[in-house]
């Protein structure tokens, strides 16, 4: 008998050592290189929970069947609230991933099309979320569908109204919302596969200093520091995925705790709002989901809706798509691209300003003076500030580039190892205790606690994975 571990047996049987994914140098095992991975992990969670809810959702009875998922289906409230927060986390992750890619100049040669795919997926994820949130049939979803029709009409696309929202009957509406939700997500998954394939083939974006801030910056496949994908990347990926899932489960489960749930503002409520025909519905401002608050405030601007929609969504989207084809020089440092960097920061500031404004003053029309007060200062400050930084950076750049990167050797010492082992034991013990406790919870009435216990199990597992991962790095 050879003494083969289960892991080795597994790797051999499924040819894991031959998986054609690219390995990475040790320094890339840091969250900043895994932002896309977090978005993908959230996407995977969404597919999982969405498919399970497909077994219960009834377009003929949208609101009541949604409520039944929360109140009568075992673990249903965990599924529904984490599906909502999975979308939130995914959108946040996509924003951070996109900004990180922008600031590293990673959209430049050879990754222009990877960036375009990313922008398209971002737009599709936003539409998918809009549709998903309308599917509940609550008052917010109903308003969202009405606003959606108005937006289509304002840009002279009324012909699309029946395609998206059906022939006017409720049954057709919700059947179509469900259909589009699934169709769009399928397209996102297909584009994601292409995006991922391009990421592998184009090679990863190395540390900017290593690339001397010049495009094309590519981690070469024959780089001596690269170790095979299996098992290092696999283990780290499992840690990232379970960490993401743990957070996705934790946030709505805390908000859904009976002591808290009634105090949560509707924008962050883990559950759908009241039915559109209930009297409480009038107490709810007609909020969109938080990631569309900027659009809501745009609709309050003193312009026709078509202009609001163009300025709030269509023009920014076109700008994002054409960025890699306009900004084609080899500069990677954000301060070497002062115009675009200032534009991005201005746009991001506007997005945040409008969102907070929309949450604070929903539906309050904007006076032109207020508009100018909100729009102009960020513009002046970011352009002024970035150009100032640009000139400062110019003068110090040669020094920074030629400085010795000072290889940080991974040192390990016995004390740290022992401490981490003890931590691992504690983590595992807590996980087992939580596992046992969680079986005493009722899957229908104790949804929030079940969500919290699952979240804890995922996070503890993730912690153990990362503790173990240190050994793989040796």
């Amino acid at each position: 008998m050879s003494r083969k571990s289960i892991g080795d047996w597994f790797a051999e049987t499924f040819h894991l050592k031959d998986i054609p994914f690219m390995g990475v140098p040790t320094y890339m095992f840091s969250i900043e290189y895994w932002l896309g991975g977090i978005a993908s992990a959230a996407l995977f969670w969404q597919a999982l929970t969405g498919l399970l809810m497909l077994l219960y959702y009834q377009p003929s009875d949208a609101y009541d069947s949604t409520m039944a998922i929360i109140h009568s289906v075992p673990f249903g409230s965990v599924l529904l609230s984490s599906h909502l927060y999975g979308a939130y986390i995914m959108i946040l992750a996509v924003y951070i991933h996109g900004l990180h890619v922008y600031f590293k100049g990673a959209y430049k040669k050879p990754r222009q099309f990877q960036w375009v795919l990313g922008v398209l997926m971002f737009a599709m994820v936003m539409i998918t979320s809009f549709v998903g949130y309308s599917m509940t049939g609550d008052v917010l979803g109903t308003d969202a569908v009405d606003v959606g029709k108005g937006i289509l009409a304002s840009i002279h696309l009324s012909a699309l109204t029946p395609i998206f929202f059906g022939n006017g009957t409720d049954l057709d509406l919700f059947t179509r919302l469900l259909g589009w939700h699934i169709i769009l997500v399928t397209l996102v998954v297909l584009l994601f596969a292409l995006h991922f394939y391009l990421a592998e083939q184009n090679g990863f974006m190395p540390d900017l200093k290593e690339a001397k801030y010049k495009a094309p910056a590519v981690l070469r496949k024959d780089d001596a520091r690269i170790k095979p994908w299996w098992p290092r990347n696999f283990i780290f990926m499992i840690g990232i995925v379970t960490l993401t899932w743990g957070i996705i489960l934790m946030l709505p489960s805390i908000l859904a705790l009976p002591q808290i749930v009634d105090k949560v503002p509707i924008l962050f409520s883990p559950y759908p709002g009241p039915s559109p025909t209930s009297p409480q519905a009038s107490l709810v401002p007609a909020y969109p989901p938080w990631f569309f608050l900027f659009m809501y405030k745009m609709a309050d601007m003193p312009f026709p809706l078509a202009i609001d929609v163009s300025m709030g969504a269509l023009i920014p989207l076109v700008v994002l798509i054409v960025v890699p084809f306009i900004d084609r020089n080899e500069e990677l440092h954000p301060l070497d691209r002062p115009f675009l960097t200032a534009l991005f920061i201005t746009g991001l500031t506007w997005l945040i300003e409008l969102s907070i404004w929309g949450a604070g003053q929903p539906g309050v029309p904007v006076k032109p003076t207020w508009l100018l007060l909100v729009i102009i200062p960020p513009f002046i400050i970011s352009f002024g500030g970035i150009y100032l930084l640009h000139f400062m950076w110019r003068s110090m750049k040669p020094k920074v580039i030629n400085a010795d990167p000072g290889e940080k050797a991974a040192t390990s010492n016995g004390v740290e190892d022992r401490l981490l082992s003890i931590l691992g034991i504690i983590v595992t013990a807590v996980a087992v205790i939580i596992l046992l406790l969680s079986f005493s919870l009722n899957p229908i009435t104790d949804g929030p606690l079940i969500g919290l216990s699952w979240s804890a199990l995922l996070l503890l597992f993730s912690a153990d994975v990362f503790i173990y991962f240190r050994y793989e790095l040796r």
Partner: protein
Amino acid sequence: MGDVDQSRRTFLKSLVIIAGASMVIGMLRGLEVIVPPSVGISSFPLLQLVDENGNPIKASDVPVNGQKLAMFNYPLNNEPNYLLNLGNDSNQPVEIPATTVSIPATGQSYTFPGGVGPNKSIVAYSALCEHLGCTYPELTFYPPGVKASTFNGPMDKVIHCSCHGSTYDPYRGAAVVTGPTTKPLPAVQLKWDSTTDYLYAVTMIGPTIYGHTDDLSGGSPISGNSTTVKLMSNPALG
């Protein structure tokens, strides 16, 4: 390997391209499968207003000043309307005269025929805000003494939408009082039978109902000769 005849090769390639293009263009039409067959009706139906038990509504029974909001669908099932018996500050029905209502969006105008019923005080308007389609309970009638906060300050005797603040004047054909809406609420032309005191919905007047390309399509027809009036609590009264 024999010699490749380049011209033949090009010829065959172009055949593939033509056949491929034919295939793609021919099948692209199939995308029409995503357009749903339209539903609707061909002309405005004459529908009697009845209560939830099917008994005819009497004009003199319609609550004055929206203490309860009476709602009915017309001409299609997804086109809700408010039935209002408008009154003065002491809740006595007042006559609503015919008036000319202008549509700021287009610059056109139309004639609103005024109220019906024993006091000529009963009117009906679409319950879908013409701005972005918010409906009951966000869009509601503010009776005398109950003020909505509008862009012209607090106002009563208006139909006001809390989604984006559009305000309409139900005493003048639901004309636009404040934006962001640029269209008045469409009105239901009502008929009152003075011998029986019954009410009927006859047709729609004014702009197209929100979310529809025309009033008669984009929703399922109302079956039978009557449409049900439901009494809802008025959210403006808290």
